[in-house]
């Protein structure tokens, strides 16, 4: 949906009879029409995005035309509307109190899921991953976190995709920040993880303690 001008022309307007009925507008889907008292309004429906706007602005019980126009021009944003989607509060709380992310391992055919809320530190998470993919063990170099498959001598580097869609090395940011921004995990084969896990020599004690967290 284009946010700029607030109006969209449907591509197939061959059937023009109900064109106005189906014309899509950002803030005010639905036709603009003359109301029963004869006054023309710019579409008297309070649309989805208008409601979104209301959540932030002042609660003004009377909808002025200007407000409505502004709402129509505001950019599309994925904001929460009160009570939507219609999921019971109990269910919402139950589902959001856990943070399941997918875990992929290079070379394994199936993915797994872990609940990041269940761990307090990187150490716990990596131990758990070790158990899950039980043929690997974790070797913790001072400021490198790697998972090593002793059988095959393959090294795995834990990486994750953050909210921005970037692939990052696990361990750089504080644990809580990681939990909030992590969308999925991937154990990459060391050879493929070049650029993410440089073989730097062990750092001095003070810096390593900080990043081990």
């Amino acid at each position, binding site marked *: 949906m284009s946010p700029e001008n607030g109006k969209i022309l*449907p*591509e*197939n307007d061959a059937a023009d009879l*109900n064109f106005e*009925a*189906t014309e*899509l507008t950002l803030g005010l*889907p*639905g*036709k603009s*029409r003359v109301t*029963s008292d004869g006054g023309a309004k710019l579409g*008297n*429906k*309070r*649309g*989805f995005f208008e*409601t979104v706007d209301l959540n932030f602005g002042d*609660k003004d*019980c*009377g*909808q002025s035309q200007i407000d409505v126009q502004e709402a129509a021009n505001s950019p599309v944003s*994925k*904001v*929460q*509307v*009160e*009570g*939507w*989607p*219609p*999921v*019971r*509060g*109990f*269910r*919402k709380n*139950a*589902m*959001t109190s*856990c943070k*399941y992310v*997918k875990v992929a391992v290079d070379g394994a055919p*199936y*993915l*797994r*899921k872990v*609940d990041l809320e269940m761990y307090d530190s990187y150490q716990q998470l990596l131990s758990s991953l070790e158990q899950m993919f039980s043929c690997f063990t974790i070797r913790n170099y001072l400021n490198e976190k790697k998972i090593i498959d002793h059988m095959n001598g393959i090294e795995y580097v834990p990486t994750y995709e953050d909210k921005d869609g970037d692939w990052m090395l696990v361990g750089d940011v504080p644990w809580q920040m990681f939990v909030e921004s992590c969308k999925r995990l991937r154990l990459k084969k060391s050879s493929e993880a070049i650029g993410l896990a440089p073989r730097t020599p062990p750092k001095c004690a003070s810096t390593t303690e900080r990043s081990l967290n």
Partner: protein
Amino acid sequence: MNYFPDEVLEPVFDFITSHKDRNSVSLVCKSWFKIERYSRQRVFIGNCYSTCPERLIARFPGLKSLTLKGKPHFADFNLVPHDWGGFLYPWIEALAKSRIGLEELRLKRMVVSDESLELLSKSFVNFKSLVLVSCEGFTTDGLAAIAANCRFLRELDLQENEVDDHRGHWLSCFPESCTSLVSLNFACLKGEINLGALERLVARSPNLKSLRLNRAVPFDTLEKLLMQAPQLLDLGTGSYVPDPSSEAYNRLKSAIQRCKSIRSLSGFLEVNPRCMSAIYPICANLTFLNLSYAPGLSGNELTKLIQHCRKLQRLWILDYIGDKGLGVVASTCKELQELRVFPTDPLGAGNAAVTEEGLVLISAGCPKLNSLLYFCQQMTNAALITVAKNCPNFICFRLCILDPIKPDPVTNRPLDEGFGAIVESCEGLKRLSLSGLLSDQVFLYIGMYAKQLEMLSIAFAGDSDEGMLYVLNGCKKLRKLEIRDSPFGNAALLEDVGKYETMRSLWMSSCEVTLGGCKTLAEKMPSLSVEIINESQQMEFSLDDRTVDKMYLYRTLVGHRKDAPEFVWIL
């Protein structure tokens, strides 16, 4: 009119069990009214404010089972403030003072205090069954009172309640002499429980048929419980995180083999997906599977499990099953009647993993489908038309497109035609929830075809008052209408005020009705209670032109309620 003495009619009336039929019988003549009221044991009150305890007690002295519903449905979605109302205590207080021998109480969306639970537990010697759905206001102390005092308790069923968990030993409060339990469901409790007490309780309950555990019950305990209760019909696991190499896991596998009666399975609130294969032996006989609180499984594991469930009639799952997974359901579960697909990410505006494709596959594979709740990314008219053709037996059809005004992505048109096809094809449709981009046209269809419709939920839909009028005029059996964020105003509200007396309730929020319109309605219809919920308190009572944020009206025999909080105006 009365050719038979009362003693003959009474046992005949015993065969009439449905509330609707009983209500009809009572209207035939004075004599039947009298016989019916003395013999009535089960009463259903869909809106607790439509009547009062005194009237209930006066009319039905033989009352044994009472069902009460409190807050309006949209309270589920945070649209009603917590202290709006729906208090249980006055009912228990009045019943306790009377001679009523209450045995069963079923509540939905009520505010239940510990005091009311305690009073309940002490006032009715034969009390047997307590079912609480979506209630709040109580703690585990209230549950302790029920456990301790209800000597013949058979059923304690807690579904999706907000309970303040004091981590007390409420389970230990069941006395050693309590051996009557048939059903115990505490899955919604968040806190720890006394595992030893639970094991002993299950061991001394030979009639236990239904057991649903909470997340705090670990796998090891589950295994022990199953050894004690192979007669279970309904099992809800708590945590299911076994160590696959452990003895406990092996013991569970053999315990499961002995549980030949399990027909209903739920839980897996925490899960080790690699161990789901232990469950496969009971899948063949399952008729109800609820994995809608199991986000720890992936689509693959879920699909593999379902492939073993050929007799499934009801399935509740999360949308990570995906359209492909739904295809597997369609080819496996030929007996399916009810399907609910919930969003894994309920904060919405997210990406549901199912689309119209999954629904079409289901409709093609499961012709017995009659009840649907489906949260999805998108829907097309073509898909809905196909679904309508494949499944003409829908009684309940609830579709929730996560973006509530999304049009058909293929044609960019509203979903009027699709929903129109549903109501035209499904002549027995009783409940309908709409979403997606919708114009007045869909309401024209609903008014025209949905002749059996009893409940309709509307959000972000329609263009004008015409839409609401089509529904009010056409749906003769409408009982509950709830509307949010739609452009319906006073003209629609006031056109036929008598209609609301034939309905249980009407909810309108963020629509175009004004305070003046609501006042007019209240004036014309004294048999209705018209409530304005005014949270922001910016509304002046005298400004009739202001649109009303939230209005809830309902018919009532007892006038305005006395327990309304400050922010509720009853006009």
